[in-house]
């Protein structure tokens, strides 16, 4: 065998080994991402269940001892960001992503319900809540814009609570939520403090749908 042929074979071996290493690394990172998401969801699940249980145990004076769920909502938002990134990396049809989204949606619904129950039990003004329904099946041209506008609003108005749901997710609890809130499939769809709003044209139009004075900010808007 000539020197060039021998070197070419070695080079081919190196190239295959390098490519395989890269493929393995990417796969490993993706698996680690899914594992981290799963761990966060497990922790949040326990936290929410704990909050829920505390709320049930102390029905007489829930507001005295139940910690605010604001922290949990913040963690839920971070989880949503991570899940969205994982979805962009792994694909929306990835079974693990779909499983995590199911679990995430359940957590969101639980948090939404507890927040409402706490406000009612404590007699406090409930926070402004947005149920946002989107689709990434290619049938919602404005969903990316709507999602980004909501991210901006959530960042600017810390008291605002945004719960995002993939309208097409095959999850019983989500289907029930959609049925209860009577949201139709014109996406993006928003339920802002029980008031429905469909489509997205601009940030200003979206802001007009919020109750007057509800968008109080702790930091200057501009």
């Amino acid at each position, binding site marked *: 065998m000539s020197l060039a042929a021998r*070197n070419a074979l070695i080079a081919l071996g190196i*190239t295959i080994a390098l490519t395989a290493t*890269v493929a393995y690394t990417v796969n490993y*990172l993706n698996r680690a991402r899914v594992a*981290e998401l799963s761990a966060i969801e497990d922790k949040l699940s326990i936290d929410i269940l704990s909050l829920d249980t505390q709320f049930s145990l102390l029905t007489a004076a829930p507001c005295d001892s139940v910690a605010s769920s604001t922290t949990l909502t913040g963690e839920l938002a971070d989880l949503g960001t991570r899940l969205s990134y994982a979805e962009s990396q792994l694909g929306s049809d990835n079974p693990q992503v779909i499983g995590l989204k199911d679990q995430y949606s359940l957590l969101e619904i639980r948090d939404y319900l507890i927040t409402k129950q706490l406000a009612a039990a404590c007699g406090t003004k409930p926070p402004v809540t947005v149920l946002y329904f989107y689709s990434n099946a290619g049938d919602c041209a404005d969903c990316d814009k709507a999602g980004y*506008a909501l991210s*901006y609003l959530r*960042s600017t108005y810390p008291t605002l609570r945004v719960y995002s749901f993939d309208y097409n997710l095959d999850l019983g609890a989500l289907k029930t939520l959609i049925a209860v809130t009577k949201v139709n499939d014109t996406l993006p769809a928003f339920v802002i403090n029980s008031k429905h709003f469909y489509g997205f044209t601009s940030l200003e139009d979206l802001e007009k749908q919020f109750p007057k004075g509800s968008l109080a900010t702790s930091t200057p808007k501009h």
Partner: protein
Amino acid sequence: MSPELFAYPFLFVAIFVESFILVTLLSKPARDARAREQGAATPSVAVIVPCWNEAATLGATCESLLALRYPKDKLEIFLVDDGSTDETAAAMARFAEHPQVRIIRKENGGKHTALNAAINATSAELVGCLDADSFVEPDALNHIVACFTDPHVAAATAAMSVHRPGNFLQHMQNAEYIFGITLRHSFASVNGLYVTPGPFSFYRRDVIEKLGGFRYGHQTEDMEMALRIQHAGYKIENAPRARVYTQAPETLSKLVKQRTRWTSGFLRNILGEYRGLVASRNHGALGMLVLPAALISIASGILLFSLTLVNLGQNALAAIDVRVGIPLSYSMLPHVALDWFYFPANVYALLGIATLAASVSLIAIGKRISRTPGNIAFDIVPYLILYVFVVPLWLITATSDVARGKRRGWRY
């Protein structure tokens, strides 16, 4: 199907070629070449400096040749004025009385005719060329001459880098030239060179004459001659420590014009008269690996650039579209936490990074092998930032010229 999938085969080939270069550098012929001492033999040598309007740099080029540490009675220098219209004749006149210098004046006929005129006028055993914008180290010729100990060697190339790179673009070219030192040194070890560049390549005169002298070669007479030498079954060697410095274009426009000429010359030679060399088992690494890889690199350069451009364009448009109407204080800032979770690891990006890392290693190796002076960091940074964006400019222009049969002037 993702358009990125089209890029994978090209990235695979790029990594394969870089691996081949590295493996070949470690093999015995390359190690022997690096260990090669300057020989005791001092055959007669003629260095030809073809000039067409080179008044500005000719003097320094000639001075550097006269400073070569080589027996003066064995070295003659031919300054060939190929019908210059500037002060070249006056610049040459300074050396008219020098015993080693011979001046030839002729009608303008192109670089190949200038080289042939001097070859016809000398009886030196070895003839070399030095472009009038290049300068040599004093011991460069000794390194080159040592390559001709092997009787099968018909030509030898030097180690080129940029003469005093001034701006960002010239530093980028310096990195590229030093990468070329590694490439040439490695490919020479398996007789895979297909160009004997104008700056300080040498030939056995009898081989040149046997092959019929230099030709027009689609404005790349050095490449055409190298291909003819390979076609005739001779070897082309490389002297990695024969350092020569050449002036690099200082503007993007001049660089694109120069490289368009080189690339279209390569395509016309390879797809024309020397098509038979491609995929030819008889020509070993040159036929089976180097030339196919060079052709693939042109296609991949265009494809990867187009893909990157389309991807960047689409992402930029989508990002702008999503941000319309959102205050700049929010939309202009990144909102992703610094966390490993968001590390954009995909096979395409990581293979691209591996290719770039290997390129940087090859540049560092080239500098070390040739002992080229200067801080390489100043060259690598512009190389990494600029190179992938400028190369496609001449690849696309040259490919388009060849496809349409368009020919451009030498300096246009």
